[in-house]
């Protein structure tokens, strides 16, 4: 046990990513080019941002459904601000501010009015989807300031700017989560909100913070989408973004019940999803097959990861060859709820 702890829990998803990437590489030589790696990451950045935000919320035991339509809202805010003649960085800042405010409103309603997160964020999802439509009559708004392109199309040492931004945010937020009291409080609230309250943790502030953070991340998603297309349009983020972001976090080991998981895990989950999407388009998988393939790969990935967590490889093999051994009868014992990943999953998150 003590020895196992030094292997980071995120490794499992990492292995799955390598596996999937290897298969795609075999199928297509272009897949394994550096350019494609950059592209893969670039196309994964929006999901990655959302997944980071979602991870914060999930860690406290909540959920944020508003994150997809917040992309449209914030992107539109940026485009409108610039159309009003303000410089690009002010446009970007106001988008981020709006994103964070939407999140903070979510958090406030959830904590102070004691409503289920699902309902609150479902409502803000609707509101955030409507506002851009109402403001522009469903029209797109061209970005006026060409410098705004730096966010989505720029690059730093040949690395696409959105990827750089994800990295910067990932580091900052991981530090926040692992090295500050607030980070501990987030895990504590997700572990047991009542206990946290009794320990004097300001759970209201923590709740507001995580949702605001998720809103901020959605704002980054909105900026990247808008900057890559150089147009703010009201249906941005209305596709699979929301689901994929939650799935990425869960694939990366974040429990939907709170208290367990890590940011690098969620990020790796996002990379897995990006790899699969990219790989399928690069290899040329028929679009009808894509939902099926992505579903199965994610399922397979989680199965591999689950077994890796539960047992060492040798145990796995032994089990596989033991006659009539029920798959996982005894390993399940320690799981508090059938749905939560095994307890140990959390161990990497807290030090």
């Amino acid at each position, binding site marked *: 046990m003590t020895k196992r702890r030094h292997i980071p829990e995120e490794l499992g998803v990492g292995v799955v990513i390598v596996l999937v990437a290897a298969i795609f590489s075999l199928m*297509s030589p*272009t*897949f394994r*080019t550096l*350019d*494609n790696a950059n*592209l893969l990451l*670039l*196309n994964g950045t929006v999901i990655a941002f959302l997944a980071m935000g979602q991870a914060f919320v999930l860690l406290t035991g909540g959920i944020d459904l508003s994150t997809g339509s917040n992309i449209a809202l914030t992107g539109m805010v940026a485009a409108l601000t610039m159309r009003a003649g303000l410089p690009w960085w002010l446009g970007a800042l106001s988008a981020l501010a709006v994103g964070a405010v939407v999140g903070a409103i979510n958090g406030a309603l959830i904590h102070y009015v004691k409503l289920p997160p699902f309902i609150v964020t479902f409502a803000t999802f609707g509101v955030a989807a409507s506002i851009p*439509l109402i403001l522009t*009559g*469903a*029209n*797109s708004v*061209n970005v006026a300031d060409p410098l705004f392109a730096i966010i989505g199309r720029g690059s730093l040492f040949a690395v696409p700017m959105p990827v750089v931004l994800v990295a910067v945010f990932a580091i900052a937020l991981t530090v926040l989560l692992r090295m500050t009291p607030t980070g501990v409080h987030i895990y504590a609230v997700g572990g047991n909100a009542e206990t946290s309250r009794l320990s004097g943790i300001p759970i209201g502030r923590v709740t507001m913070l995580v949702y605001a953070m998720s809103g901020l991340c959605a704002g980054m998603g909105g900026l990247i*989408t808008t900057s*890559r*297309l*150089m*147009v703010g*349009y*009201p*249906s*941005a*983020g*209305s*596709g699979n973004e929301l689901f994929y972001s939650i799935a990425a976090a869960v694939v990366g080991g974040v429990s939907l019940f709170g208290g367990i998981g890590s940011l690098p895990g969620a990020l790796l989950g996002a990379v897995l999803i990006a790899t699969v*999407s*990219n790989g399928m*388009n*690069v*290899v*040329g998988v*028929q*679009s*009808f097959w*894509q939902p099926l393939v992505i579903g199965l790969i994610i399922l397979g990935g989680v199965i591999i990861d689950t077994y890796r967590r539960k047992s060492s490889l040798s145990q796995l093999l032994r089990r596989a060859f033991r006659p009539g051994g029920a798959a996982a009868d005894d390993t399940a014992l320690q799981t508090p709820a059938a749905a939560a990943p095994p307890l140990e999953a959390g161990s990497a998150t807290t030090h």
Partner: protein
Amino acid sequence: GAVNTGTAKAGSAASASSTGGIPKPASCSDATPYVAVALPNLTNPYYVAMKKGFEDAGQANKLKVEVQIANDDSANQLAQVQGMLQKKPCALALNAVKSEPGAAIVKAANDAGVPVFTVNVGIDETSLKSQGASIVQYLGADNAAGGKQVAEQLLKDAGADAKLTVGLVTAPDETPAVTRDKGFESGIASDANAKVVATVDGKVKPDVSLKATTEMLAGNPDINVIFASTGPAAYGALQALGSNSKVKVYGFCAADQPLTAQYPACVAQEPEVYGTKVIEQIRGWLNGTTPQAQVLESLKLFTVGQTPGAGEVG
């Protein structure tokens, strides 16, 4: 009896009188008759323009136009139309979400004695027949011709036997998009050196199209032409190309996008005009003319240097 199987042909609505086989609901004699309009979505600028056409023409033609948006869901569209039928419209203008499921919506309007004018998306003939439903008119772009038109322009630009390696950014589950693809493919069939090597789903959304295009190009570096079968796809595909990319985008026009060397030609529909024309057809019918069963609008070609105007989109 107690059970109604729902299969019986509904008796024509009592209040409807008929002119030339087309039922005419009582509400048609109101001062400003109520016209129900059902559109699939507003995420595509195409329908935003069409909605405007309907609404403005409604004012001009003294019709009370109400537009409802189905969010791309056929069942939802049926629900919306049934809701509007409660208010006894004089006519229904229908741009169905999907071709076959649209037949049930037509059937619902038939049962309520309301005439149906379809626009842009045709209703599948077999579906109509199997449900015993009928429409008054179809008005819309000639999608197959549009695709072919682009192909012809492409061959004109590149030469009749140019080596063309084409990638499609389309929406395989949208009937009009598939029709355009077929038109395009038949157009380039004359060039033995042209072939389609990849097809990706842009979901009629610019961000999805952007991603899908980048990845298609990564997988097929030899692609030199992209055919985008919808406006949003054209926009996303264009954004996916670097400024020094050799790839050219042809297709249905992205809104407000000037045509350049990299984006040499596109065809545009005029959805706003379609909306206006449908209303005018209805007004004409109310004034006594018999509507044609099919009105096909040709597409407008744009080439380098031109910019599609307001309301001219793919």
